[in-house]
């Protein structure tokens, strides 16, 4: 029986076969790659170039017929001298720093505990991973109920441990607590993701390395710091990269929970950007804002990927 390649060759009409035979390998490779390159250009590169162009204009997407003027660097100047945007950046930095610290710490600890063989190991993994599978909109609404000062479970748990009156504080309504409320929910939702990546790292360490360390009479703490941590580090860095980029553009969860309030204490840059672009319709201004965020994330991701490659080479 003929193999599939021969069958396809036989089934190809002679005119097409002659034409294909006339093409070089390089040309055939280009034909296969061309659709992907076209999609990449249409979906990623063209919008990026268009956004850069719009960022130098006063274009408003809700007034298509209006004359578009070139404003030079004025949009950038206005964004970078706006104290409200500066506050939004600080709110984003607070959110980013604490979510990543907590997720890495708790995620790694959970992975380390799950990696120890015990009864019901798989069941616990499934239970821990559940929050990650939910939609951010569902999680936002769900935690809104939990944070209710009168009927919410969260306040009652805090009351149980601290003795403070359940209705004496409001996680989503108080200026000092609202930034922490979004940190708690994001940590609850995305720690399992970090845990899974760390678990993959822990399971990739061969047992013989620990056995050799045992023979050399290395203590458990020494083994942890000289074998476990260095070998899991590339995985941890990858998790930080993914979570860092995701949280820098965090939108849905925070909108559901606080809508950026109270005041603008939890108004992250992405929420502010959406307001400028689709509520105030200042498209040119919002494009400049988006480019500033893009350059920041791109720069950070570049050095991070470089560092990750260095750690992997080691």
């Amino acid at each position, binding site marked *: 029986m003929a193999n599939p390649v021969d069958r396809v060759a036989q089934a190809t009409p002679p005119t097409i076969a002659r034409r294909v035979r006339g093409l070089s390998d390089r040309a055939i490779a280009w034909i296969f790659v061309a659709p992907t390159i076209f999609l990449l250009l249409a979906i990623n590169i063209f919008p990026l170039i268009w956004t850069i162009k719009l960022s130098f204009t006063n274009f408003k997407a809700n007034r298509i017929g209006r004359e578009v003027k070139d404003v030079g660097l004025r949009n*950038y100047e206005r964004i*970078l*001298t706006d*104290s409200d945007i*500066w506050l939004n*950046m*600080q709110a*984003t*930095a607070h959110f980013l720093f604490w979510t990543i610290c907590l997720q890495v710490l708790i995620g790694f600890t959970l992975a380390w505990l799950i990696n120890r063989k015990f009864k019901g190991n798989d069941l616990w993994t499934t239970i821990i991973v559940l929050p990650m599978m939910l939609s951010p909109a569902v999680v936002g609404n769900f935690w809104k109920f939990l944070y209710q000062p009168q009927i919410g479970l969260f306040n009652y748990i805090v009351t149980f441990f601290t003795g403070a009156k359940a209705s004496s504080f409001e996680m989503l309504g108080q200026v000092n607590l609202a930034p922490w409320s979004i940190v708690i929910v994001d940590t609850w939702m995305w720690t399992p993701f970090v845990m899974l990546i760390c678990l993959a790292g822990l399971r990739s360490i061969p047992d013989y390395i620990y056995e050799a360390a045992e023979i050399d009479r290395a203590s458990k703490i020494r083994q942890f710091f000289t074998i476990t941590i260095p070998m899991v580090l590339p995985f941890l860095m990858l998790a930080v990269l993914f979570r860092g980029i995701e949280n820098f553009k965090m939108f849905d969860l925070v909108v559901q929970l606080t809508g950026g309030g109270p005041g603008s204490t939890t108004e992250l840059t992405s929420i502010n950007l959406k307001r400028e672009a689709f509520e105030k319709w200042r498209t040119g201004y919002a494009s400049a804002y988006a480019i*500033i965020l893009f*350059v*920041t994330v*791109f*720069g*950070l991701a*570049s*050095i991070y990927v*470089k560092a990750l490659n260095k750690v992997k080479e080691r």
Partner: protein
Amino acid sequence: MKRFFSDLVRFRRGAWEMVASILIGVGVVMLMQPFAMWAFTWSFVVTLTGTVMFIVVSHFPA
């Protein structure tokens, strides 16, 4: 340190990538710090310089 400067003069990738990375890091800190408005204002220029430099110098010989 001496080697670092010699690599800079000879346009070697490692040293220049280090400079670009420092610029990006400083730019991001300037963007998100809560202390000085002028640092926030100049943060984008610093980050952009670092990012463009990083893209260019990653093509330098190792």
